[in-house]
């Protein structure tokens, strides 16, 4: 007998070792159940983190835009309108009124990490016979890179874009057969053109973005898009992307600006994510219940099998509390052992998954973080479930009348 162990533990361990087959089967059962839960949770959180990261790679959590222009109906007198139908106005590219003031105010808000003005509009990149339509984004490099990590996505060249420079995506570079150092003409619908030198090529991991986005200095874009001194949007980065909508509402309050959070612009993704979380929770609950019922049923049988022994323990002076704890410990210990096994299984599955789930080019489909805290949580939760599942059989054992138990 281990000298560090105590009465209840010693008896519980011997009881479990005595019914070794039962014990091993239930540990295996708990292990499989726990493994599924841990694996699924890791996968789901990996998927979410990955999608969130990829989306926020090239999209600011909050974008502030000028208000839409509305056609005002003509009125003869109050309440009487001259035109029965009013056609909505087409929206031309405009600057946000007093964008510097708004930028400074938003920057002072808590939870806002960085703010940057941009000018974005349509244009064409022309090189030789090729012309490609693109979205021109004029940026202030020093603030822009704090919102969108474009600087980290540069795969060739530099990123400190000057008045005569342009940064293009990999797809566009391929389409135009261009490389760092080549010159392009950038034209807009207003007729403005500029000749710019490609100083960098970026890869956001998204074909559309790599094909359509080009980045120039803010001043160049203002000239090209006829918005001198203006900013067509303000991008805002917040500390926790999931609070973006709340912060967006705060900014929106009291102004007529359009403030869009990525949560609203990616509504479909969030709906899908919520559905996944719900499914995962349901699976966890049912697997947890199955595990608990398994443990409870093994212990119910054990109490019946061991009623004589329980009777003699009670006759010898073991208290009801001691007998109760003997069975609670069994429930907790089997669940803990099962969750350790489950964690090992889940870890193995995750390692295999990392190896198998790859894109055609061999890069990982998405990165699954193996978080030690997830295993710790799983073990604690399983132990609690095990003890709870043992409660009913343990109470039954503790209440056994020693005389009746020994006679049975």
């Amino acid at each position: 007998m281990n000298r560090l162990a105590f009465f209840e533990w010693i008896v519980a361990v011997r009881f479990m070792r005595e019914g070794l087959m039962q014990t091993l089967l239930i540990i295996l059962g708990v292990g499989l159940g726990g493994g599924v839960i841990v694996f699924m949770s890791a996968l789901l959180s990996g998927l979410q983190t990955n999608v969130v990261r990829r989306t926020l790679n090239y999209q600011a959590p909050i974008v502030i835009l000028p208000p839409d222009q509305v056609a005002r109906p003509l009125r003869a007198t109050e309440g009487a309108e001259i035109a029965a139908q009013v056609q909505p106005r087409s929206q031309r590219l405009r600057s946000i009124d007093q964008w510097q003031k708004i930028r400074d105010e938003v920057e002072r808000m808590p939870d806002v990490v960085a703010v940057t003005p941009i000018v974005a509009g349509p244009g064409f990149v022309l090189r030789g016979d090729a012309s490609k339509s693109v979205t021109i984004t004029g940026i202030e490099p020093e603030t822009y890179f704090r919102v969108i990590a474009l600087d980290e996505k540069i795969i060739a060249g530099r990123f400190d874009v000057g008045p005569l420079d342009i940064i293009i995506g990999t797809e566009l570079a391929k389409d135009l057969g261009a490389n760092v150092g080549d010159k392009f003409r950038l034209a807009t619908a207003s007729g403005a053109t500029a000749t710019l030198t490609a100083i960098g090529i970026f890869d956001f991991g998204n074909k559309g973005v790599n094909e359509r986005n080009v980045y120039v200095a803010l001043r160049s874009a203002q000239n090209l898009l006829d918005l001198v001194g203006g900013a067509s949007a303000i991008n805002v980065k917040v500390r926790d992307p999931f609070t973006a909508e709340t912060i967006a509402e705060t900014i929106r309050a009291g102004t007529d600006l359009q403030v869009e959070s990525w949560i609203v612009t990616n509504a479909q993704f969030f709906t899908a994510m919520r559905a996944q979380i719900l499914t995962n929770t349901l699976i966890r609950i049912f697997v947890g219940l199955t595990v608990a019922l398994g443990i409870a049923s093994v212990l119910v049988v054990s109490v019946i099998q061991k009623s004589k022994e329980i009777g003699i323990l009670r006759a010898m002076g073991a208290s009801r509390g001691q007998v109760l704890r003997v069975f609670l410990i069994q429930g907790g210990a089997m669940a803990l052992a099962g969750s350790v096994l489950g964690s090992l299984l889940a870890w193995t599955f995750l390692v295999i998954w990392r190896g198998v789930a790859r894109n055609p080019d061999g890069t990982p489909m998405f990165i699954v973080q193996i978080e030690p805290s997830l295993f710790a949580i799983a073990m604690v939760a399983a132990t609690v479930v095990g003890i709870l599942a043992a409660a009913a059989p343990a109470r039954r054992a503790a209440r056994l009348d020693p005389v009746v138990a020994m006679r049975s």
Partner: protein
Amino acid sequence: METLRLSGVRKSYGIGTPLEVEVLHGIDLVLERGEFAALMGPSGSGKTTLLNVIGLLDRPNAGRLFIEGRETGGLDEADLTRMRGRSIGFVFQYHYLLPAFTALENVMMPILAARGRPDDEMRATAATLLDRVGLTPWRDNKATEISGGQQQRVAIARALAMKPVLVLADEPSGNLDTQSADGVFDVLRAINETSQTTFLIVTHDPRLAQRCDRIIELVDGRIVSDRKNPNVVRRG
């Protein structure tokens, strides 16, 4: 000095049902320290019920029960369990050893239950007791790996682990052949003589009863005879 006193102890089963039956009809009994008494009687006479009441496994419906002069009527379940563990040792017809434990560990169990953690002292106590019942060579055998007579002797050693003042034995040799039964009785008698532990032994066997100092006969829940045995047989 009195180890046990019963006055007017009554026990009924099925109270409040049509099957209500009184098993013990007012038992008065005193056992002095160091007595070695046999309790005899036909089946159904209430011997086991009486033993359960004395052993604090069952409460009487009426009457009073004193162990070493202490009234037990007012004690709650936890106190009774504690008192049972400390003052009373049980030997049953069946050994009820814990099969998952060795002989030595089975003997340690009552001390372990009382103290919580194993230590060298309780191991030594258990080893001494096993030595007294002649089982030192088998002390590390599992309880299932020894013979019936040996199992019963382990059970006796276990009953003595807490140095109880009173040992209650319910047909301790009922399941054993004559030779083993005599061996078990020898052990009980030897312990009684060396440690002055009081014994109350239920037996059907008149031959074994003749080895006791006092013979109490129970018939239909009443003590019908209670006499000293003048011709105690010392060896089986």
